[in-house]
């Protein structure tokens, strides 16, 4: 990594460096402190990523973070009613779930409902750190294939709050991790989650990120997920941050032998967002399905960056991402699939499709296949197009007004990504979520 001390610090970088020297830093226990200080050193050396770094070609954080986002000090005073109202707006509100709620970064037991049977441990990371169980100490910070990246480094630098979840059997209902943002002023909220799915277990995790309108925070969230031998993970995340917010997310998935992981992300919020997913195959006969949808308007910017590392033979990976882009919004898809020399019989397919609702919207796709094995089936594709005029005509010829016809066609386009989600209830909730966006959006148009 290049030292860029000669380069002038941006306000955002300066604010983080000031925070590194301040006294509000999380501290203890020792095993975590060493990771935190290494992360701070990494950030001091690298600064914020910018467009001359290949993986950040399209998302220039040095440029896009115009202000400083110092870590949020004291969480604001409780306003339980307000939080509850926000929770009710989660797309998953109608589902029967257990809940762990984090308001402005901090775990709120009075808003949560952790009853999920004996097979699931749900801990508040901040509260368990002093006497952390082995499954936390041995995994936290370890399920990271790219710990050096800027989001991860900044996250570790301030890591203290988040959820630590261990699933040892079949979850009877989903666990929803809810992240609410209400505090005002530019600030960073850091959350770090650890999800350990033990051998043969089946985890079902939902995440919703909800922001109060008008707020301009930066949410930095890293989730480490270890999916053990023959275990199953269903993971669905919905990002509905405030319009002016920044959402920087880094999801790391490690898969053991015979494991099945299905992770989906839907985004409609934030002015700038980046979803990184790093997945690593640790055992053979493993399946990974990554999918997602984003619906953007105005000048929103959403970057999905994936890296799938086929380190062992006989594994399957599927990626399907759908983007609906209006106005001057910009959607980015970077997908890298590496197949190492010994990873024979790898089956990897990737597709990203954008629907451009305006000529001024932009879609950038950078698929990358790095294949070092010869007996593999891999493919990728990216398409961009606008709504099919013939389809629109047919629907209107049956009396469906243009706006409604557009909404039907957009829902059909995006629905193909939702189809990747296994739970019927969750899929329906996602359809409702997309429908709400379309209603709001087409009304406005």
């Amino acid at each position, binding site marked *: 990594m290049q030292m860029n001390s000669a380069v002038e610090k941006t306000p955002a970088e300066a604010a983080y460096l000031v925070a590194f020297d301040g006294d509000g830093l999380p501290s203890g226990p020792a095993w975590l402190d060493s990771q935190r200080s290494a992360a701070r050193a990494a950030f001091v050396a690298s600064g914020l990523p910018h467009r001359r770094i290949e993986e950040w070609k399209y998302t220039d954080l040095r440029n896009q973070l115009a202000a400083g986002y110092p870590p949020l000090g004291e969480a604001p005073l409780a306003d339980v009613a307000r939080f509850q109202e926000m929770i009710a707006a989660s797309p998953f509100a109608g589902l029967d779930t257990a809940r762990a709620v984090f308001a402005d970064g901090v775990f709120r037991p009075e808003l949560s409902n952790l009853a999920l049977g004996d097979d699931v441990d749900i801990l508040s990371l901040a509260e368990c750190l002093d006497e952390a169980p082995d499954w936390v100490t041995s995994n936290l910070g370890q399920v990271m294939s790219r710990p050096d990246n800027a989001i991860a480094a900044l996250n570790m630098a301030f890591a203290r709050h988040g959820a630590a979840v261990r699933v040892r059997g079949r979850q009877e209902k989903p666990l929803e991790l809810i992240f609410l943002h209400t505090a005002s002023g530019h600030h960073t909220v850091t959350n770090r989650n650890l999800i350990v799915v033990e051998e043969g277990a089946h985890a079902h995790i939902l995440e919703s990120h909800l922001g109060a309108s008008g707020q301009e925070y930066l949410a930095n969230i890293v989730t480490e997920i270890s999916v053990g031998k023959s275990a199953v993970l269903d993971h669905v995340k919905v990002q509905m941050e405030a319009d002016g917010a920044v959402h920087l997310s880094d999801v790391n998935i490690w898969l053991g032998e015979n494991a099945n992981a299905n992770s989906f992300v839907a985004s409609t919020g934030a002015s700038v967002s980046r979803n990184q997913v790093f997945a690593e195959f640790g055992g053979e006969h493993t399946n990974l399905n990554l999918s997602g949808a984003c619906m953007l308007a105005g000048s929103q910017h959403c970057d999905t960056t994936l890296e799938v590392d086929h380190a062992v033979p006989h594994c399957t990976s599927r990626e399907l991402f759908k983007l609906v882009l209006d106005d001057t919004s910009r959607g980015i898809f970077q997908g890298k699939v590496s197949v190492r020399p010994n990873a024979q019989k790898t089956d990897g397919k990737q597709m990203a499709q954008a629907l451009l609702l305006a000529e001024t919207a932009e879609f950038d796709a950078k698929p990358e296949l790095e294949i070092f094995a010869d007996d593999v089936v891999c493919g990728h594709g990216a398409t961009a197009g606008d709504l099919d005029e013939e389809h629109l005509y047919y629907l209107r*010829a049956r*009396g469906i007004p243009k706006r409604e016809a557009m909404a039907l066609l957009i*829902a059909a386009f995006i629905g193909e990504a939702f189809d990747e989600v296994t739970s019927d209830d969750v899929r329906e909730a996602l359809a409702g979520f997309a429908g709400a966006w379309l209603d709001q959006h087409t009304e406005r148009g």
Partner: protein
Amino acid sequence: MLDIKNLHVKIADEDTEILKGVNLTVNPGEVHAIMGPNGSGKSTLSYVLSGKEDYEVTEGSVTYDGADLLDMEIEERASAGLFLAFQYPIEIPGVPTMTFLRTALNAQRKARGEEELTTPAFMKLVKEKAQQLKVRPEMLKRPVNVGFSGGEKKRAEILQMAVLEPKLCVLDETDSGLDIDALRVVAEGVNALRSPDRAMIVITHYQRLLEYIVPDVVHVLSNGRVVKTGGKELALELEANGYAEFETEAA
């Protein structure tokens, strides 16, 4: 009900004129058949009536129920009771047939100031009509027309028509691609809609359909003009002699 006067139409981005002064008057309760050689402009006429944007009207007028049809949006025409059963119905992946039908029916009802149908009432209606038209329930579970055979697509068009109960039905070669039994079922479906305040324009190449759906008037469209109008016996004549007579006229 429908009054087409001296209608001239060309393709929007080109100069080629397709309709060259069509005149046609359809009164409530009437069934008109339009026959004519390939490429004579029959589908173009039906598209222009429905409001398809690829065409440009350069001259003439179309009055529907006293209103200027050409001034109406595509969806307004549909809500006002105009229905076009397409010669080549398209597939719309991802849009479930039932969602499509319900959205269309309720949008039309809403536009006409009528109450929207409840889901159970809607389901009952569609089931009933599907049964009459021998449309398998399994087909209704698929996205609009996706994977339907040619004949199934035509039947699905008539199902849509039966559910939407339009006032002016334009059937563009609905008979082509239908097997003998399906032709009868579809014709029965169309006849069930015949009423003193509904009218139909049936575009076809074959006398056979007109045995089932007996027309009041038959027109021959050739080279963008109505070149002959007569009673139902005209269809028989055409079946016997072809269009040679008109093609010389047009040339």
